[in-house]
């Protein structure tokens, strides 16, 4: 049963990753034969190149063509056909005895106003059936273009990252250190990968949709571009701001906010020009290589991650320091006489199911007393998350970050018979970095004291959508 579901899922993924882009590319190329037609592409005459065409006829055809608003191939075909029709008509009227000037005037008069005829021909070409085909084809092509753009963007982002890493490595060898890459570089790179891929995906989807829709519905690309630009900007904009959740940073937020702008612009920017195409084999080789990398990474992750799935204990890395931690604005330690020695211990655990961090304090397991007894002297108990400095060496400063005079987050303690707890979502804070969580309470003298240290020290990174980021507390 599970195998069957897995096979179905794999088939669906393969269909999306391979068949959708291949189908979209075929549709785009078919449409581009209509959109980017050049004279004599398919053996039909080029009416504009005829030296014997009377001036009146050329002027008539120019006015008619300007009202057509059809793809280049259709407009050229209509012009060539009408030029042929008029030339034959003139010849026929001359054979009936009219002089050439009268024959030209009569032939053009029989066709009526060039703008009215152009409108009629355009209406004949742009039928409702073709419009529906264009809309359907545009949506399909947008799906394929999205997949192609996503892989392209991801590959470019990875390529830029590797290039940047190589440059940084070379500069480091030369003794140059780049300040911007010294802090949180992994978090920043992580947060930028998806928006970069998404920007390319939105742009490709929009351009594919415009080209295919124009070709199938027999409309000039710019006449359908307004619809696709608006639709793409709204759909991809909402998706980027509310629908995508992952590592977030200010550059990533800016990149995500660029998605609707890029999607809108992509519908118009040089849209008359053919899209860049790479060969089918190159696309398939790229997709195959990407799948192998993803599969390899997945297997590696499964092999290394399975042993430590579930909850993760949050503790500060133990380093033998030559000096004590800085306390900054932390509340003072509770006097020993108000806390039964060893009766309260703090700890933290990352909850795999909720994504939150559970911090708790328990009474001593060796000599259990009820939490109510242990905390007789205390009220207004709460857990506080403080910015923390984690040292990498025994001589480095560590402890509370002295730049902050108050905790970043405080949560009231949930009191249970033998433990108290609070669940933090530190990955929903824009301010990243290590944290330390302590249990505090108001003692008998009315002062707030630290009752227990619950640990922490883990580096956090914001996880959520752009909207979560914008609305998150500072």
């Amino acid at each position, binding site marked *: 049963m599970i195998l069957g579901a897995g096979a179905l899922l794999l088939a669906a993924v393969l269909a999306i990753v391979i068949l959708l882009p291949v189908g979209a590319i075929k549709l785009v190329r078919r449409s581009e034969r209509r959109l980017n037609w050049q004279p004599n592409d398919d053996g*039909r005459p080029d009416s504009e190149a005829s030296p014997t065409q009377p001036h009146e006829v050329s002027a008539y055809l120019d006015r008619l063509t300007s009202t057509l608003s059809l793809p280049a191939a259709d407009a050229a075909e*209509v012009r*060539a056909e009408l030029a042929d029709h008029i030339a034959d*008509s003139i010849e026929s009227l001359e054979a009936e005895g009219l002089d050439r000037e009268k024959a030209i005037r009569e032939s053009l008069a*029989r*066709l009526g106003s060039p703008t009215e005829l152009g409108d*009629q021909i355009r209406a*004949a070409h742009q*039928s409702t059936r073709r419009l529906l085909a264009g809309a359907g084809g545009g949506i399909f092509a947008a799906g394929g273009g999205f997949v192609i753009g996503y892989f392209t963007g991801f590959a470019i982002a990875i390529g830029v990252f590797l290039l940047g890493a190589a440059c940084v490595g070379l500069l480091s060898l030369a003794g140059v250190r780049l300040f911007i890459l010294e802090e949180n570089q992994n978090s920043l790179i992580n947060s930028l990968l998806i928006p970069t891929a998404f920007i390319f995906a939105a742009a490709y989807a929009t351009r594919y949709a415009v080209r295919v829709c124009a070709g199938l519905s027999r409309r000039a690309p710019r006449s359908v571009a307004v619809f696709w630009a608006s639709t793409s900007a709204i759909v991809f904009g909402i998706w980027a701001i509310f629908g995508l959740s992952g590592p977030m940073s200010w550059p990533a937020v800016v990149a995500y906010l660029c998605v609707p702008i890029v999607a809108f612009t992509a519908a118009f920017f040089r849209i008359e020009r053919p899209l860049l195409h790479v060969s089918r084999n190159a696309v398939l080789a790229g997709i195959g290589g990407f799948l192998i990398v993803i599969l390899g990474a997945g297997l590696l992750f499964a092999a290394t991650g399975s042993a430590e799935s579930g909850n993760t204990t949050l503790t500060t890395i133990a380093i033998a320091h030559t000096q004590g931690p800085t306390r900054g604005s932390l509340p003072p330690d509770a006097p020993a006489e108000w806390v039964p020695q060893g009766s309260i211990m703090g700890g933290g655990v990352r909850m795999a199911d909720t994504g939150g961090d559970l911090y708790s304090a328990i009474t001593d397991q060796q000599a259990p007393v009820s939490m109510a007894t242990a905390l007789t002297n205390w009220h207004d108990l709460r857990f506080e998350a403080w910015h923390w400095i984690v040292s990498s060496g025994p001589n480095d400063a560590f402890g509370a970050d002295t730049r902050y005079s108050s905790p970043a987050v405080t949560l009231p303690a949930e009191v249970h018979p033998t433990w108290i707890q609070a669940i933090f979502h530190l990955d929903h804070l824009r301010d990243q970095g290590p944290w330390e969580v302590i249990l505090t309470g108001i003692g008998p003298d009315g002062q707030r004291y630290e009752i227990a240290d619950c640990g922490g020290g883990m580096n956090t990174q914001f996880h959520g959508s752009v909207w979560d980021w914008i609305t998150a507390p500072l």
Partner: protein
Amino acid sequence: MSPEPLAAERHRVLGALADDSLTSLAVARRLGAVPAERDHRLLIPALHGLEADGRLTANWQPGADGLPHRTYRKR
């Protein structure tokens, strides 16, 4: 322009084509017997509309003069 004259023209064009493969002017000549001074302003839109609807096929074929002409044929 109201759609009725165009619909009527489409009907006449289909009747004029029979099973032949004709250029737009040849179609006009077949229809021209009705009014001598017949105008062609509905002819091309009717032909293109029938082609868009799948009732006709159109191809560029060399004529007697050796030049390519667009000819229409019933499906």
